[in-house]
C-alpha cells in the first residue's frame, strides 16, 4: 500500500474551476499537521491559504508559484521518509487530474430559487438527504459565498443549506416587513417551511447568528443546535465604522478599507472580493436597503436587539470568535449562553469561517455530531 498522500487544488465554493498558486508557505521535508496553512492560493473570488487536509511530511512541491491549475490538480506530495524519491516520481507521473463532471461544473444548476413571503430567495443545498441538515445564515451585507470554504466540507457529514437573506446576495432586493430580527427570523423559518425542512442545525455568522438566536427563542422546535460565529446579539457594541462604511461605500477605493476591517489579514481582501461586493451594492435599491437595515439593527455603534442574551441552556450552543474581531468585540463571547462551548481562535478577525475554515468546519462537525 502506498503511503503517499496527494495535496490537490481545493474547490472553494460552487463556481471555482481553477486557482493560482501564489507561494508555498512550507518547505520540503517539513512535518505538516492537519489544518496547517501550506500554500497561499488565489482564485477569481478570493485569496486564502490552503490548509493541509491531512498530516504528513511534505516530500515534493509539484506546483510552483504563478501556476494556474484546475481544481484537484496535484499541488504537492506528502509521504513518510521511507518512501523513495523514485516512488514519488512515479506517483507524480501517474497522477491524472480528475475532470470535473458536468454536474459539478455547472454552478448555475447548484443554485435554487424559491419565493417566500413574496421575496425571491436564492439558496443552495448540498450533501445527502438523510440526517438533520445544517442551515448556514450569513451576516449583514453578506451572502452564501461567505460559506465558500464550509459548504463542501460540512456537506460530507450532513446535508447543508445556505441561503441569501432577503435583500442580500442574489435574493430579491426587499426586506421582510418589520425591519428587525424577529421579522428576519420569521422569514428564515418560512423559508425552511417552504423547502420542507422541519429542524436544522443553525449556523449563523454575525447578524446571521443573531437571527439564529432569535429563531431559537421564537421557534425552538426548528433548532437542533446553535453555532454562533462572531455573533451579533450577544452584547451592545458593534463597529459603526464598518456598518456605515459598508452601507455607504460607493467605489472600490471606499469599500476596500471597509472590507479589510472584516479580516485579521487585510491581504485576504482580493480585487475580486471587492468587485463582487460592489456588484451587489450597485443593484438598484441595495444601497438604501442596507442603510435601512443598518439603522434598524446597528444604529450608531449599538446593537438594538440582543436575542443571544436571552438564550437558555436547553439548546446546545457553540460560540466561535476570532480574537482580532474588529466588527463585534471578542469579549461578547463571555455572554454566551450557559453550557455553551466557546472557542476563541487566535489571529483571526470577524470572518472566522473564511479565515480559519478547516478549524471552523471541524468545530461545527464536532458540535453537530455530539
Amino acid at each position, binding site marked *: 500500500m502506498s503511503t503517499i498522500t496527494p495535496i490537490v487544488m481545493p474547490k472553494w465554493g460552487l*463556481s471555482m474551476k481553477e486557482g493560482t498558486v501564489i507561494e508555498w508557505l512550507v518547505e520540503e521535508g517539513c512535518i505538516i499537521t492537519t489544518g496547517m496553512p501550506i500554500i497561499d492560493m488565489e482564485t477569481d473570488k478570493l485569496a486564502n491559504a490552503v490548509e493541509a487536509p491531512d498530516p504528513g511530511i511534505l516530500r515534493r512541491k509539484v506546483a510552483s508559484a*504563478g501556476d494556474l491549475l484546475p481544481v484537484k490538480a496535484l499541488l504537492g506530495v506528502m509521504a513518510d521518509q521511507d518512501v523513495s524519491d523514485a516512488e514519488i516520481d512515479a506517483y507524480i507521473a501517474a497522477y491524472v487530474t480528475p475532470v470535473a463532471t458536468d454536474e459539478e461544473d455547472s*454552478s*448555475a444548476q447548484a*443554485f435554487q430559487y424559491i419565493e417566500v413571503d413574496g421575496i425571491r430567495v436564492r439558496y443552495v443545498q448540498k450533501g445527502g438527504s438523510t440526517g438533520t441538515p445544517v442551515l448556514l445564515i450569513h451576516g449583514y451585507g453578506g451572502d452564501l459565498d461567505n460559506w465558500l470554504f464550509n459548504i463542501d466540507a460540512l456537506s460530507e457529514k450532513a446535508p447543508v443549506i445556505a441561503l441569501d437573506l432577503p435583500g442580500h446576495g*442574489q435574493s430579491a*432586493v426587499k426586506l421582510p416587513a418589520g425591519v428587525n430580527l424577529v421579522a428576519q427570523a420569521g422569514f428564515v423559518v418560512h423559508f425552511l417551511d417552504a423547502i420542507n425542512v422541519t429542524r436544522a442545525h443553525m449556523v449563523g455568522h454575525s447578524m446571521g447568528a443573531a437571527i439564529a438566536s432569535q429563531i431559537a427563542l421564537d421557534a425552538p422546535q426548528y433548532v437542533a443546535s446553535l453555532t454562533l460565529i462572531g455573533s451579533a446579539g450577544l452584547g451592545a457594541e458593534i463597529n459603526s465604522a464598518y456598518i456605515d462604511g459598508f452601507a455607504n461605500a*460607493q*467605489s*472600490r*477605493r471606499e469599500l476596500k478599507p471597509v472590507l479589510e476591517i472584516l479580516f485579521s489579514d487585510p491581504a485576504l481582501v482580493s*480585487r475580486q472580493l471587492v468587485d463582487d461586493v460592489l*456588484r451587489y451594492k*450597485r*443593484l*438598484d435599491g441595495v444601497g438604501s436597503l442596507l442603510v435601512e437595515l443598518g439603522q434598524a439593527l446597528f444604529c450608531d455603534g449599538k446593537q438594538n436587539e440582543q436575542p443571544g442574551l436571552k438564550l437558555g441552556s436547553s439548546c446546545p450552543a457553540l460560540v466561535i470568535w476570532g480574537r482580532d474581531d474588529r466588527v463585534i468585540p471578542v469579549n461578547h463571547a463571555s455572554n454566551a449562553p450557559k453550557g455553551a462551548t466557546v472557542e476563541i481562535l487566535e489571529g483571526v478577525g470577524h470572518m472566522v469561517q473564511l479565515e480559519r475554515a478547516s478549524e471552523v468546519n471541524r468545530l461545527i462537525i464536532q458540535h453537530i455530531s455530539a
Partner: protein
Amino acid sequence: MARKISMKQAVNEALDQAMAADPTVICMGEDIVGGAGGNGEMDAWGGVLGVTKGLYAKHPKQMMDTPLSESAYIGAAIGAAACGMRPVAELMFIDFMGVCFDQIFNQAAKFKYMFGGKAETPVVIRCMVGAGFRAAAQHSQMLTPLFAHIPGLKVVCPSNAYDTKGLLIQSIRDNDPVIFCEHKNLYAHECEVPEASYTIPFGEANIVREGKHCTIVTYGLMVHRSLDAAAVLAKEGVEVEIVDLRTLSPLDMDTVLESVTKTGRLVCVDEASPRCNIATDISAQVCMHAFGALKAQIEMVTPPHTPVPFSPVLEDMYIPSAAQIATAVRKTIKGSK
C-alpha cells in the same frame, strides 16, 4: 447569477429597464425601430445591427424612428432633455458626429455653464465606435478624444457587457449630457450580467488584471488586446496590471496614478489616432503627478496617424495588436533605470 449575455443584449436590456422605470426616457434614432411608415413589419431592423430589436413592441410610445437628419434629431434630443425628458439618441456611428457636432459641443455641453447653472441636459447619445468592421474611413473611427476634450460632456466607453449595462443605466439617470461609445467589435462579447437594474458610477476605472511590473491604461476593445498581451507576458514572468478606464470623462486618474506608483512603468493603449488622444493625456498627467515613480520611459500603443483603411490587410495592420502591446511592455522593462 451565472447568466451570460452579450454587450448587445446588455444595451438592449439597459434601455428596456430604463424605459420601463421612467416614462420620460425616450429613444430616438435612425432605424432604431425600422419599418416606420412602410407597409411591412414594424421593428424590421431594431437598429442597424439589431441592438434595439424588440424594444418597440414593449415601449411603442418611447421608441421613435427619425429621418436621416442627424442635426435635427440630435438637437431635438438635446432640446427635449432641457425640457424634462431623458432622451437616448442613437447616432449609429460616431463618425456621423460631424454633421451634428454643433448641437453636441456648442449646445448640450454648454447649457449648464452658459446659463449660469440653471439648465439640466440629461441626454445620452449612443454611438458605435472603433475599427475592425471593414467599414473604412467614415464608419470606423475612435473619436473619443474629441468629446473628452469638451467641458460639459461625459464620455463613456465600456469594454464588456456588465459595464455596458451599468454604465448605460447610469448615463440615462445622469443629469449631464453623456456620449456613450459602444465598440462594434464587442457587441458579441459575453459575460455575467445581473438581470436586475444596476448602475456603475462614472469616474471609477476598473482594474481588470493585477500585476506588479507594468501598468497598461486603456479602454474599450483595447482592454481585450491588452489582456491577450498580458497572458503572453505572464509566461515570460512579466506581470502586467491593466486599468480599464471605462469613462474617459470624468477620468479616474487616482487609480492610474496608484497603479503606476506601484509598478513604475506605464503603457497607454488607445485605439484613437495618436495625436492629442487619451493616451497622450494619461501620459502627460502621469509625468506631471508621478514622474518620480517611473522607472522607464512611458510607451504608447496607438494606430498610425492615418484614416482607417478599408482593405482588411491594411485595417488589421492599423489596429493596435496584442503583439505591439507586448513589445511596448517589454521596452519599458528593458529600458528601466
